[in-house]
């Protein structure tokens, strides 16, 4: 019987020729990841287990990115735990402020994760690396602690759902819109426990940034992982970056899917997810009376250079609306430097937008842009739950970077088309 990419990667990591959905397997992991919120618990559990050594000092990545640069004393204590653990175990993949970035933008960029890998991370958006054709999934701190000791983790092999995106993308539509549209269709638990395999003409023509964005939000449909077949575009991206050997897997023609859905991209306009769930989607054209207080452009979903270019192209020569604040956060140091080189910072600064050093910050209501009671934000991030960016009575609308930039100028949710 044929296998999906997900099944093939898992089989290769548990020493089997084949795995079938529902099967319990014990897999070797290529990379284990944790951040400044989740690593402290993992480190405590690691010590509680009486462990003295990590399984491999070059396969454990610690990235202080959520509250870093430290927002308060308690956060400073947490990042200190990461730093000390990294020193104690001589970890080669610890990223200090000044070298770090938002973890899921950083790891692919630095070639730490590659095609065909199995990656676990104590962060739900670890599923991002499916964009490279890797199996990657979010777990809790205790699972990370165990994997730091053994280099292994058990899984129940997931069933796969196939999504076919046919046709070409309309103007101002990107990977973000396709994934929001999909979540709007299947709901926030529409892919619960499953693998989401994203295919079709629109995906084949999509750059790596869009692919990573789409897989990043697989968790918002409850999925275990999102995955895209690696191709020439993937090859272009990983060669020269990958620190280890990578491998391309493809799904067999007779692979089994529990569900197959096809979307005609000609019918998809820019999508906005309204409060308080990513499934509450509308086309931007349906939302032209929603005034806003803040715009956040960044995060592991849309903080890459392509995203900043898209936002800059829209905001160039315009000004942010009165009483609206715009916070632009390049996701990594490399993105930061590139944006500066290309003159994007001048465009943002001329428009009265602010620019910050890399951090997850406002996405989770951590720091650098927390919302007050009754305030409303457009964000290019991935979640709009109650209280996600601040006060429980604040509101978050999720969009792509072009719509976010247009909304900043309009002072209300709107499309870049309206700026002409």
């Amino acid at each position, binding site marked *: 019987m044929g296998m999906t990419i997900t099944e093939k990667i898992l089989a290769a990591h548990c020493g089997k020729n084949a795995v079938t959905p529902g099967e319990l397997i014990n897999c070797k992991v290529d990379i284990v990841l944790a951040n400044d919120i989740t690593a402290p*618990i993992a480190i405590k559990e690691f010590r509680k287990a009486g462990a003295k050594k990590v399984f491999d000092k070059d396969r454990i990545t610690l990235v202080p990115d959520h509250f870093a640069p430290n927002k308060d004393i308690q956060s400073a204590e947490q990042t200190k735990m990461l730093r000390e653990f990294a020193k104690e175990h001589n970890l080669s993949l610890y990223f200090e402020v000044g070298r770090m970035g938002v973890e899921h933008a950083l790891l692919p960029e630095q070639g730490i994760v590659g095609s065909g890998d199995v990656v676990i991370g*104590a962060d739900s958006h670890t599923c991002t690396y499916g964009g490279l054709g890797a199996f990657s999934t979010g777990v809790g701190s205790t699972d990370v602690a165990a994997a730091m000791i053994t280099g292994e983790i058990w899984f129940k092999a997931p069933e796969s759902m196939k999504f076919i995106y046919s046709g070409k993308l309309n103007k101002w539509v990107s990977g973000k819109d396709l994934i929001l549209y999909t979540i709007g269709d299947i709901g926030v638990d529409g892919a619960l426990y499953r693998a989401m395999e994203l295919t079709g003409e629109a995906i084949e023509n999509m750059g790596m940034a869009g692919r990573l964005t789409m897989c990043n939000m697989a968790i918002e449909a409850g999925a275990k992982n999102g995955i895209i077949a690696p191709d020439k575009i993937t090859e272009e991206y990983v060669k020269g970056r990958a620190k280890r050997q990578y491998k391309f897997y493809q799904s067999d023609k007779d692979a089994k899917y529990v569900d197959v859905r096809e979307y005609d991209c000609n019918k998809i306009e820019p999508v906005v997810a309204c409060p308080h769930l990513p499934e509450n989607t509308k086309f931007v054209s349906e939302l032209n009376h929603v005034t806003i207080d803040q715009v956040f452009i960044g995060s592991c979903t849309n903080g890459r250079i392509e995203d900043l270019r898209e936002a800059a192209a829209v905001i160039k020569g315009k000004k942010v609306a009165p009483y609206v604040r715009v916070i632009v956060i390049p996701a990594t140091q490399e993105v930061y430097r590139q944006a500066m080189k290309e003159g994007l910072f001048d465009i943002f600064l001329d428009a009265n937008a602010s620019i910050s050093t890399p951090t997850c910050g406002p996405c989770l209501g951590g720091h650098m842009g927390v919302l007050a009671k009754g305030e409303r934000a457009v964000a290019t991030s991935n979640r709009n739950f109650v209280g996600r960016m601040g006060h429980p009575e604040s509101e978050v609308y999720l969009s792509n970077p072009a719509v976010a930039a247009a909304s900043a100028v309009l002072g209300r949710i709107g499309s870049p088309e309206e700026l002409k």
Partner: protein
Amino acid sequence: MTFKGNAWKFGSDIDTDAIIPARYLNTSDPAELAKHCMEDADKDFAKKIKKGDIIVADKNFGCGSSREHAPISIKACGVSCVIAKSFARIFYRNAFNIGLPILESPEASEKIKEGDEIEVDIEKGIIRNLAKKEEYKVNPIPAFMQELINAGGLMEWTKNKIQKSK
């Protein structure tokens, strides 16, 4: 193992930001996290509940982030067990790993009302609604998972196993 307590009802898609908002994640101290348990879904939950009480929710409980702080805060504030129609994947795994019993039961989720006195027998897989004199059957928690819960979580369980084999 059995638990007895009163039911606290919650709706669908209760996310981990509602269970423990990120503004409190600058600590991983269970006692501190317990003070803010369910705060953005029910502001005074942590003050109102009695030790042993049970959370009964609709579908997809615990969706969102992988923060283990979510099941930790629930366990630390005295909740003995969570019953839901379904659980989000990472939360499900985390709950067992930290030793918080959880049960999937669409029937119990629908029939139990706020305040009902509930008794849960995780070995037999029975949820008893003492207020309504009803019983709902669920899949019992397998023996090794019960051991894991008894031990206080995956790490304690692993440690016990290592010590036994010595």
